């Protein structure tokens, strides 16, 4: 019973890789066996966000070309016994892998993992086609701005054309102060425009930058973003979790009471 999830956005820089890292880590913390695959050939980054860049020996292209076995290329994250990373190749390009090869590779991984997360490259070309080829469902990451939402809409159309119908939305980098002022689209605005199910919203949080600097995903810690990501993980697993209140303006006592919840 494994599920293959592609994390995609169309536009670059909206947080696909960060989301993949946090979901992978979060699901592993929830005792699921997870492999994250970086499909961004030529521009790999999931390894550094995970802090595993020094442990790469083989990569995705090596596996596909038969230079090594899958097991040899999988990096086991020492912090979580259930978490693995299949890194991308840095010195090759997207045409090094075909959608058929991806399907074959992922079918083999299905036997062993509960969740297979695919970090999709930006764009709608070959890399995108490779990433979605074997996916059962998709998570669309967008920020509440005009161009990423427009690109997300295009991606949704392409996913549906490729028979992927389970598509959920993550609204990333939300700034509640700006939403309140009316200077940023709200979660509801984005959901209304894209007309797909919302699976979570992540606030714009300094701690994301810090955690990326450290190479340690923050999912599950007590930062707002950490909680938001953990909630998304639970919803991915099918749990019903209430939406997090992202309004940061809270008094000392409210914070204190949250600690004891």
């Amino acid at each position, binding site marked *: 019973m494994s599920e293959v999830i592609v994390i995609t956005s169309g536009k670059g820089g909206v947080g696909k890789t960060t989301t993949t890292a946090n979901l992978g880590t979060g699901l592993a913390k929830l005792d699921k066996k997870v492999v994250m695959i970086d499909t961004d050939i030529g521009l790999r980054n999931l390894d550094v966000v995970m802090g595993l860049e020094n442990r790469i020996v083989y990569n995705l292209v090596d596996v596909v070309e038969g230079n090594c076995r899958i097991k040899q290329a999988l990096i086991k994250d020492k912090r979580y016994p259930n978490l693995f990373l299949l890194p991308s190749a840095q010195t090759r390009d997207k045409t090094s892998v075909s959608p058929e090869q991806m399907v074959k590779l992922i079918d083999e991984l299905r036997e062993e993992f509960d969740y297979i997360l695919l970090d999709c490259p930006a764009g709608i070309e070959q890399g995108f086609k490779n990433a979605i080829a074997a996916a059962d469902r998709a998570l669309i990451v967008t920020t*509440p*701005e*005009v161009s990423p*939402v*427009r690109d997300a*809409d*295009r991606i949704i*159309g392409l996913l549906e054309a490729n028979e992927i119908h389970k598509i959920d939305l993550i609204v990333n980098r939300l700034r509640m102060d*700006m*939403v309140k*002022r*009316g*200077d*940023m*689209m*709200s979660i509801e*605005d984005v959901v209304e*425009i894209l007309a797909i199910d919302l699976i979570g919203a992540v606030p714009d949080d300094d701690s994301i930058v810090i955690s990326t600097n450290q190479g340690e995903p923050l999912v599950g810690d007590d930062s707002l973003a950490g909680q938001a990501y953990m909630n998304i993980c639970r919803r991915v697993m099918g749990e019903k979790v209430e939406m997090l209140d992202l309004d940061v303006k809270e008094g000392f006592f409210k914070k204190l009471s949250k600690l004891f919840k």
Partner: protein
Amino acid sequence: MALLDFFKKKSSGSLAKDRLKLVLISDRANCSPEIMESIKNDIIKVISKYMEIDCEGLDIQITQTESDGANGSVPALCANIPILDMKHKKN
């Protein structure tokens, strides 16, 4: 018109939402500005056969409108064509 909108001081969030709604309709309809321009020119050609219209004041755009059916709002082509004079009043 865009300039007027600017001075109306609409909040930028709802401005973004409105712009997105419109751009997505033409994205989804696979309709580029060039196509819109040729539609506009063709409309001018056809209407001009029957009446004199103000080509400068002509404005066409794709907007959303409530459909009569149950399927909510649908895109609609709205043309605003100022008539200057009726031609050929059977002389």
